[in-house]
């Protein structure tokens, strides 16, 4: 049994048709206005020629209301072939001053299917999920993601990582990272070796200090100070980088 959605309730096709038939017993043609134009609810049982007559009469009666209107039309209650649809439109246009701009498709079931598919897509791609990239990003390479991103490797200077969600680099981040790319300043950037060229989170941007890449002699000192995984977040409109501790993760 096929189910359709009618006014929020699951009903079988049979029930719906029955309801419609009772409603339509006196009225073979009902004109309903929908948000996009008018919806023509047609009786199923009438032979097509008689239906055309009814349509003509209905519109002529409502002539004053629809004077010179340009409307979009959709059909409900009865399956019409393309030829039949055009005949209906002809009848309306010949006998009134109405001009039909276009025919709309009207299919409740299709709408529902589309809506469900959209929801599933959005859920699968929300910032809660993430994509993995294995390998080192070299200078000149750019990686983008609709969700969060985990890089299993380094991000070399000159490389760019862009994600609408969070960014985690399981390696050295020496390039540019842009988290929260559609304006979400609540995202974070984490790296095992945080040494970025630039970090942008949402609307806020921060750059590395002007001192050049540490050269050999000084390296050891700097290395010991800045060891360990670090995380960058937005705090009071600035990019704040701090070591990852368990307390920090709890409060995020």
């Amino acid at each position, binding site marked *: 049994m096929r189910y359709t959605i009618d006014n929020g309730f699951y009903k079988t096709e049979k029930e719906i048709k029955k309801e419609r038939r009772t409603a339509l017993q006196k009225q073979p043609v009902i004109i309903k206005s929908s948000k996009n134009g008018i919806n023509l609810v047609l009786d199923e049982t009438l032979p097509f020629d008689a239906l055309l007559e009814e349509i003509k009469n209905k519109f002529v009666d409502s002539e004053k209301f629809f004077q010179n209107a340009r409307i979009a039309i959709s059909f409900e209650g009865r399956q019409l072939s393309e030829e039949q649809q055009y005949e209906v439109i002809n009848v309306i246009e010949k006998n009134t001053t109405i001009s039909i701009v276009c025919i709309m498709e009207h299919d409740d079931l299709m709408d529902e299917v589309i809506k469900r598919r959209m929801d599933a897509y959005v859920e699968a791609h929300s910032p809660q999920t993430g994509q993995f990239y294995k390998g080192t990003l*070299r*200078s*000149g390479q750019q990686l983008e993601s609709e969700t969060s991103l985990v890089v299993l490797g380094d991000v070399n*200077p000159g490389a760019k990582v862009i994600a609408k969600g969070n960014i985690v680099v399981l390696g050295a981040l020496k390039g540019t990272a842009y988290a929260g790319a559609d304006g979400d300043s609540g995202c974070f950037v984490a790296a095992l070796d945080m040494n970025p060229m630039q970090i942008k989170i949402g609307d806020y941007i921060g750059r590395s200090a002007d001192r050049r890449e540490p050269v*050999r*002699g*000084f390296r050891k000192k700097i290395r010991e100070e800045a060891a360990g995984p670090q995380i960058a977040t937005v705090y009071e409109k600035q990019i704040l980088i701090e070591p990852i501790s368990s307390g920090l993760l709890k409060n995020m």
Partner: protein
Amino acid sequence: MSEVIVITSGKGGVGKTTTTANVGTGLAQLDKKVVLIDTDIGLRNLDVVMGLENRIVYNLVDVVEGNCRIKQALIKDKKYPNLFLLPSAQTRDKTSVNPEQMKKLIEDLREDFDYILLDCPAGIEQGFQNAIAGAERALVVTTPEVSAIRDADRIIGLLEANEIGKTELIVNRLRMDMVRRGDMMSVEDVCEILAIDLIGAVPDDEQIVISTNQGEPLVGSDSLAGKAYQNICRRIMGEEVPFLDLNVKEGFFSKLAGVFKR
């Protein structure tokens, strides 16, 4: 069947041509049949470094356009009869050759030589695309300077994207005194950033300038750079050679002065 190796760097002036000349000569000294191809059209200088510029009649563009046979364009080296050079054109530019033509040329040369070395021009456009067209192996040359390393990183990314098989690193123009002072990056630092296998480290050597001007590659000679290049050749052939200790021996007085400085 031969091995086709491209020597590239991205940045200009780091030592690609010098490396090509020395590695080619070194392989010839080890009794291999080698051909060097200069793919830098319009700015050729492999012939100058090899000392063969007065012997050029035909060049790469002539071969590709069909004006001559390959054998007519190949120039035999002054010293080694198993070493050949295919020079580039000085009066044309990079658009004169396309990657397809390069591939065909290399196919034609494959049977006759053990090693085909391609000297790549600087940059990442047509010249680079031409040079990597037929290559199966790459040597990336860099100096231990930030700008050279950035460019080398980009080049390695492009080589990986073009699926060139083995990519190995040569660190050139090392100055161990500066490295000791902490003013220059060491070989380890460079390797850590670029993350590819190291095949050789060549120190900065005055002898290179002299050898280039005279047109006689110094591989195999007693100088430190010459030994370093020879080791690179042996490693290319698959031998395991320990890396040279590039620290120049300090004289007695400099050691004494060092004690007082601390």
